[in-house]
């Protein structure tokens, strides 16, 4: 590692994020093809609707395993709420102003913690459990009706938040994308976005 770079994520963390993102993309695309008949051409690209169903099911297995593997990386940190987190929320992360800056943040900021807990864990568990219900126990009418409803509430959550997650991890915050590719960030990035974490690491 170059001297001015700081390690933010482990290799396993990045690999697992890639697995989660890839399985999510496959699931989201095939799912759109199932939900909107006008978009059924998406499932034609996934080798036809029969194969798309099998791909959707097994990508779901990969997704749910990958989801559980994220717990070790983020769950503990996300559940620790501190004063910086409330300050981050009240300043809306500084995203709606060119000048306002939230106070120095720990390794994850409040927005990341909320996204992780509500969307990744909450939505992820809801969509995984309902998916297994629909797949493995289709003979129960109640299962299908409730499972579908839950599945689609989670889909709505993801449809709204994942594009924002991608935007915030790329264009909105230059220097951030490499967190999930290379695993390293610059010292200046660390100080700007996660000042408290940088301080704890001895970066001034």
């Amino acid at each position: 590692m170059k001297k001015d770079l700081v390690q933010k994520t482990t290799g396993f963390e990045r690999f697992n994020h890639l697995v989660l993102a890839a399985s999510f993309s496959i699931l989201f695309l095939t799912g759109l093809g199932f939900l909107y008949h006008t978009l059924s051409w998406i499932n034609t690209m996934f080798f036809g609707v029969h194969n798309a169903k099998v791909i959707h099911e097994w990508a779901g297995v990969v997704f749910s395993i990958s989801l559980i593997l994220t717990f070790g990386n983020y769950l503990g940190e996300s559940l620790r709420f501190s004063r910086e987190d409330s300050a981050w929320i009240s300043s809306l992360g500084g995203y709606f102003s060119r000048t306002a800056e939230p106070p120095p943040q720990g390794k994850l900021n409040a927005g990341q913690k909320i996204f992780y807990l509500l969307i990744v864990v909450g939505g992820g568990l809801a969509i995984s459990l309902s998916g297994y219900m629909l797949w493995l126990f289709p003979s129960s009418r109640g299962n299908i009706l409730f499972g579908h409803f839950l599945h689609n509430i989670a889909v709505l959550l993801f449809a709204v938040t994942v594009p924002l997650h991608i935007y915030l991890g790329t264009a909105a915050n230059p220097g951030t994308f490499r967190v999930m590719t290379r695993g390293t960030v610059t010292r200046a990035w660390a100080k700007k976005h996660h000042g408290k974490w940088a301080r704890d690491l001895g970066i001034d």
Partner: protein
Amino acid sequence: MALEEMDKRRLSGVDIIGRKKGLLVTPDLCIGCRGCQTACKEWNKLPGEGTVNRGTYENPPDLTPNLYNRIRFVETSTPDGLRWLFVSQRCMHCTDAGCIRVCPSPGALFRTPEGAVAFNKARCIGCKFCVAGCPFNIPRYDENDRISKCHLCSDRIANGLSPACAKTCPTGAISYGDRVDLIREARTSGYKAVYGEADLGGLGVLFAFREAPSFYGMPDKPSFSPTIGLWKGILKPLTIIGLAGAVAAAATHYVTVGPKEIDEGGDE
């Protein structure tokens, strides 16, 4: 929203309700011969199934993947004595069909030009969502996990013939024709309420009942689960609006507030 509208227009039978074909079932005329069951099996090349004596003429006891149409024998004791009723049980060809609404595979369940709800086994992916979507518990799955049910002999009616069951019925208990005519016929024969006239956008299979539907073992107000309406009516359009909204919000943010640049030069 537009996508939802397009799906709806393609799948709903509302626009063809006026020229929809259908069946009128009159239990009063039925003699319980079950010729309709046999004719249906013959036309649709469905194998016979071994049955056991359960102490009733009703046989088989339920619809199966190889039995699209069945006469239910209803025994009810009333103050005037025992009533023995024969009611045809089969797909009702709903205009607002729960099965079509929930089916994720386009063309697996579809509406024929005559308004019948037909199926294409080659497109069925075996998810069984249609079973949960049906208010009458009709769809069955065959040994290959593909849907199987009455399709109103869509291959016959497309060629100007009447469905096998109606063709063979010796008493006119099952009669086929234009839905509007069938309703008028039932009225002129003195049936005040025609079951299925308005339910679920208008059923393709109508029933001339003397008593309340529940007397014949039918739901008084057939409907599919409200979660299907919430899912298809609210969550489905919201999902595409939300997706587009999130992308638009990100783009707007980028060109107005702008990204959080790292101001210390030379580092990045």
